[in-house]
Each structure stands twice: as structure tokens, then as C-alpha cells.
């Protein structure tokens, strides 16, 4: 790259000074970035105003689709969840970006994006529809102080016959969790998860595949989620609630975060921001007042998930709406956002939810010095990303997602795991049939063949 993609974008965008572009962003914490940082900064640089449209995650697909159907062109730039990108692209809601990428010299910088995201979340049908913009992946966080407490270690070894350390598989996870809960509850529980829709389904996708499960029979496209593996995972997941704090079934992202930061849970699995905030990074920031203060700074360890291949889990692409009336301005904005320079700043924002996704982010000296454990954190994030499992991504993926979400919600409600899975499989089949078994089979084959789809 002879020229910095960020500067290119800024230069080119200046001619749109005075216009306003609307960007769809996930409501809540995510939009703190464009609201507080990148939006104002872009306006200062180019004179283009950025209007942030906050949409709750579960409405994002609907809203984007509606806007496209309506031809209203109310949105210019979009945040798109990668697993839904094929649907949106197929429907024509997204603008193909290749031409603009070339026009504004962005191809090189795209190469810097970590492979897991670059190879899986950027293109559909050979065309670029979005820039992976968030290094989403699941990590295991644990309380070093507890895990390294000699007394605990000793007792644990005595009881279970192996060293107390971050769990290598789910059996260990359960044993450790139960052990800590037994010892320390109600002050500290072994683990806590966020359990509310739609997120636990990513956990399920990961564990299901790591235990050897397949979503579909590749020949018939009949769903096989109700296999023994599915049942086993479901049963484990429910059983784990027992050593987690009461009411964990209701927890969402912040509930779980609060519990961990307040020291109530000893382990949790979540996206990378947990790691930063738990370390106390950004505490005291006005914009981060939403997050309870960390009581565990300096006591947090980072590790790969049990079984070693974590789900990438959602992620975000920056895209341009096909109906936008300011396509080029919108494109330039996302190029600038996504560029090496800007993105490095963004992933370091104390309150950001955007996680490092470029090789240059992982390597950034500045980032590695943000807090004492930052190098360990970045390394874990990087490795997790490299080993990450892709979210299932089929035609009309949102329907499959909805079915899974509902299934897991039923699971917490105490319904019989087998019955839920059978129903889920049946729902999958109905969806598949509706979409067209032939079409879907082809799409599934392509997806399943990707290195991150099923563990080898």
C-alpha cells in the first residue's frame, strides 16, 4: 500500500461535505463508537454528517430488508451480520463493492484482515459485499487468583486427580465449575454465561460441532441436529446451569459481564470486550458508565475455549445499502472506518465493542501496552480467531437462527431436550424444504467445505 486507505477515503469524501449519511448500527453499546468517536471525527475530517440509526440486533435484518423492499433508501451504510450476508446479497439489498474497492485502492489493506474473517465474511458469490469489521470470537475468561490459589489447587487435585487449570474440555469445565461453586458459593460461582436469546445458540453450534455433530445430512439435507451429540450438548448445557448463579437463564450480555466483573463468577465465555473491561481498561470513562466497575482487574486469565475451537459468533461487516442515495460517500465512510489506521484506533476505544480483527491490531505495540495482560489477551484473541468456527450460514439463515434461538429458550424453560431437538430438526427441514432443498444443499456443501465450518 503506497497510500493510506484512510487518507484516500477522507480526501475523496470531502466533495460530499454537507451531506448526511445514515448508518445502521446495533443499538446500545455498539453504537457508542460511531456516536462518540468515529461519527464526529468523520464529520470533522470531511464535513459529512453521520446519523446513527440504532437498531436492536434482532430487528437489524428486518429493518434492512424492509428498507430495501421499500426502496426508501433511508439507510446508507449498514452493519451486516456475516451469516445473513448471503441472503441480503441475493435479495440485492447490498451493494457489490469491488469496483469501489479498486477505485479507492483498498484491496491491499483488506489483506491485513485476519484470515478467519477475511476469507469467510467478506464475499458472497465471488463478490465483495462487506468489510469484516469486528474480530468476534469466543474466549474463556477465568479468575487467575482462584485458579492459582494453592489451597484450591491442592484440594482440587486431591478431589479430581488433575491440576486446577483452564478446562481443556467440557467435562473439566463442569468439574471445575462445580468444584468452585461448592467451595465458594454464594460469594463466587464456578461459572456464568449469558443465556438469553439469541446468543447461546452460538455456544451450541460450537459445542455441537466440536463433539462431532453435523447440522445436516449432506446428501438428503435432512437435519441431524437431533442426533445423540445434540442431545448430549443440550443436556450438558442445562446441567451447567446448576452450578451457575441462580437466574442465570435470564442473563444477557451485561448481566453476565456484571457478574464476572463483580467477581461473582470464576469463569465465563464471551466476546473479547470482556477481557478488556475485566482488566479495568477504560474504567472511569463516561461512555462506559453502563458497565459496572471491575472488581477483578489484574486477576483475569485468558484461555481458549474447552476443546480449543471457539465459535466466531456473529461478527459484523460494514456494507453499503443498495438503495442508498449516497453510495459513494457511504462507501468512503466504511472504508475509512475499516482502514488499518482508523480501525486500530477504534478497537482501542475504551468503550468499544469492536474487537481486533487485523493482523496489525494483534501486533500493535500500543495496544499490547494498554494494560499488563494485554499481550496475553491479544495472543489469545488471535489464536482463537485462527481456530474459530464459522457460524452456520445458509439461505434464509435467519430462519434457522430463529429456530435455534427458540429451541434453546425452550431448553432453559425445562422442556425435554430430546423433544426440543426433534422439533428443531423438523423445523429445519421445513425451512429447508421451503427454501428449496436443492438450492440449499448446494449452499450447504460450499459452506461445509470451508475450513472453519466443521473441525477436521
Amino acid at each position, binding site marked *: 500500500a503506497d497510500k493510506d486507505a484512510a487518507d484516500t477515503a477522507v480526501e475523496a469524501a470531502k466533495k460530499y461535505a454537507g451531506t448526511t449519511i445514515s448508518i445502521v448500527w446495533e443499538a446500545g453499546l455498539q453504537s457508542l463508537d460511531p456516536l462518540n468517536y468515529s461519527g464526529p471525527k468523520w464529520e470533522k475530517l470531511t464535513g459529512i454528517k453521520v446519523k446513527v440509526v440504532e437498531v436492536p440486533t*434482532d*430487528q437489524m*435484518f*428486518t429493518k434492512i*430488508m*424492509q428498507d430495501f*423492499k421499500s426502496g426508501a433508501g433511508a439507510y446508507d451504510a449498514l452493519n451486516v451480520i456475516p451469516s445473513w450476508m448471503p*441472503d441480503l446479497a*441475493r*435479495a440485492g439489498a447490498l451493494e457489490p463493492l469491488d469496483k469501489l474497492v479498486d477505485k479507492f485502492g483498498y484491496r491491499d489493506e483488506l489483506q491485513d484482515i485476519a484470515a478467519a474473517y477475511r476469507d469467510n465474511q467478506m464475499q458472497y458469490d465471488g463478490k465483495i459485499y462487506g468489510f469484516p469489521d469486528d474480530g468476534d470470537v469466543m474466549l474463556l475468561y477465568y479468575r487467575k487468583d482462584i485458579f492459582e490459589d494453592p489451597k484450591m489447587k491442592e484440594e482440587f487435585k486431591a478431589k479430581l486427580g488433575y491440576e486446577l487449570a483452564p478446562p481443556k474440555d467440557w467435562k473439566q469445565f463442569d468439574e471445575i465449575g462445580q468444584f468452585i461453586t461448592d467451595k465458594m458459593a454464594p460469594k463466587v460461582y464456578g461459572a456464568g454465561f449469558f443465556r438469553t*436469546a439469541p446468543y447461546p445458540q452460538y455456544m451450541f453450534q460450537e459445542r455441537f460441532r466440536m463433539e462431532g455433530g453435523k447440522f445436516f445430512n449432506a446428501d438428503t439435507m435432512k437435519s441431524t441436529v437431533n442426533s445423540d451429540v445434540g442431545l448430549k450438548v443440550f443436556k450438558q448445557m442445562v446441567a451447567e446451569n446448576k452450578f451457575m448463579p*441462580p*437466574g442465570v*437463564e*435470564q442473563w444477557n450480555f451485561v*448481566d453476565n459481564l456484571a457478574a464476572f466483573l463483580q467477581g461473582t463468577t470464576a469463569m465465563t465465555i464471551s466476546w473479547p470486550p470482556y477481557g478488556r473491561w475485566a482488566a479495568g481498561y477504560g474504567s472511569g470513562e463516561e461512555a462506559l458508565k453502563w458497565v459496572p466497575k471491575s472488581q477483578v482487574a489484574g486477576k483475569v486469565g485468558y484461555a481458549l475455549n474447552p476443546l480449543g475451537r471457539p465459535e466466531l459468533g456473529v461478527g459484523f461487516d460494514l456494507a453499503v445499502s443498495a438503495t442508498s442515495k449516497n453510495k459513494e460517500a457511504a462507501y468512503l465512510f466504511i472504508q475509512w472506518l475499516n482502514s488499518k489506521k482508523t480501525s486500530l484506533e477504534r478497537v482501542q476505544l475504551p468503550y468499544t465493542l469492536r474487537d481486533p480483527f487485523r493482523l496489525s491490531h494483534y501486533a500493535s505495540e500500543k495496544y499490547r501496552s494498554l494494560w499488563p495482560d494485554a499481550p496475553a489477551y491479544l495472543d489469545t484473541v488471535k489464536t482463537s480467531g485462527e481456530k474459530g468456527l464459522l457460524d452456520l450460514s445458509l439461505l*434464509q439463515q*435467519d*430462519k434457522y437462527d*430463529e429456530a435455534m434461538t*427458540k*429451541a434453546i*429458550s*425452550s431448553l*432453559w*424453560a*425445562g*422442556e425435554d431436550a430430546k423433544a*426440543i431437538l426433534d422439533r428443531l430438526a423438523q423445523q429445519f427441514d421445513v425451512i429447508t424444504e421451503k427454501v428449496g432443498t436443492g438450492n440449499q444443499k448446494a449452499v450447504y456443501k460450499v459452506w461445509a467445505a470451508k475450513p472453519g465450518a466443521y473441525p477436521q
Partner: protein
Amino acid sequence: MLEDRLPYLIVAPAIFILLLVGLFPLIYSLIVSFQRITMTDNDTSFVGLLNYAELFRDARLWASLGHTAIITVIALPLELLIGFLMAQLFIDRLPGRQLFVALLVLPTVISPIVAGATWRLMFDVRFGPIGQILSFLAGEPVRILWTVNPAYVYPAIIICEVWQWSPFMFLLLLAALSNVDQSQLEAAEIDGASYLRVLRAIILPSIAPVIAVACLIRGLDLVRIFDIIWALTEGGPGSMTETISLYTYVQGFSQFEISYTAAISFLVIALLTVITTLVLKRMELAR
């Protein structure tokens, strides 16, 4: 002369708007419901009754109708009863009644979304006061996952619903009760009738039309209940509390099953028409 056509002139704008926004969608839905339009492909070929046939195979649809019915059947009588009891409390002269009434109206005028959100807060197992109060009363920690535990989600929804709408019933019934002929009550008092007899022979018959109207209004509202559930449970756990409105929304707006949604709409309209007609018939009879 203009003045002679006035009766028609002044209905025209209202009727026009009603036709535009009321009739057009029905016709449109009717046509679309015979087509096969989904999110992605804009296939507009006619498929006859396929979508309607589909309705009968859609277990989730019927389940959602069932959920709607459950909520309606439980919440409506409760609201009526509580509203009636409240009205009884305030029917006689009570200094400061104005203030009480003004405050009691509040839940009813609050946005249902706010109501749902508020109760979600109230029900929260850790941060909400309900668990705290129950624990205090029980003398031991009571941890009820109101929105997760199937045994409690309907109670949760119904508590919220009843909280919001009992005051509405209260207002209606208060007004109706104050219209009950005072001298009939006095006559009955002099005749020495017990409260139950007075209730049965005088009060209930005379407020029956209001009760009927109230039930109709609230019944129709309950059948299309959406906001509260959206904010409180989002239809969960699973689709245990998914109502017909919620399901229609999901079909129409997150899955873009356009034709199918139209068919559902017609099913709902047909059902409501039948029910309303029956209710109105009964009301006629009662009069």
C-alpha cells in the same frame, strides 16, 4: 345547495381516509394471499388456496392462537373483577377520590411497551423488587425466573396485563356504577336485600351493557396483544407465549413470508369477525 349536501360532504373526508387505510389493505391482502410472494423471490404467480391450506398445517400458528386465547380468557375476567372491586371501593363518596382516580388511571395510559419493560424490571430475579418482596414474605430466598420458567411466564404476562388494564375497567365500571339508579339501591336497602341479591338483581343487570362493551373493547385488544409481550418475553421461552400478533409479525417482517402473512391476516380477521358478531348478538339479546 351546499347546505343540502352537507350531511354527505362532512362524512366524505373521514370515509375516504377509512377506505384508503382500511379497505385497501384488505383487498391487497386478499389478492396477495393467493400468490406466492416471499422475501427474496418476487414470484407473483397465483397458487390458489395453497397458503390457506398451509395454515392448517402450521402448528405454530395454532399454538399462537391458543396462547392468545389463554391470555384473553384469563386476563379479561381478572381485569373485569379487579376493576369492579376497585370501582366498588370508590363508588361511594370518598374525600380525595379525584386524586386517587387520577393516579389510578396512570397504568392505563402508559405505553404498553413501557409497561412491559417496567414489569421486566420488576420481575428480574436479581435486580427486581418482586423477588425481593416475595423472599421477604417467605422468609427465604425466592428465585422465580418469571420470563423463563414456563410455570410463571403466563402469570407474569397476565400480571402485567392486568396491572395495566384493570384501571381501565375500573374507570368504565366506576362510571357505569355511578349511573346505577340510586333510588333503586335505596329501595333495595329499605327492602332489606342482601348485597349479593342487590348485585344480582339490580347492579349487574344495569351495568351489563357497559360490561359487554368493556369486554368487547378489551377482548379485541387482548386478541391483538403485542407490545406488552414484545417487551416482556418476546414470545419466549421458545414460542411458549407467542401470540397471533407476534407470530404474524415474525412471519411478515422477519421472514418476509408476504403471501402467507396475508393468509394469516385473513384468518385472524375472519376469526375476529365471527367472535365479534357472536358477542354483539348476545349483547343485543341481553338488551
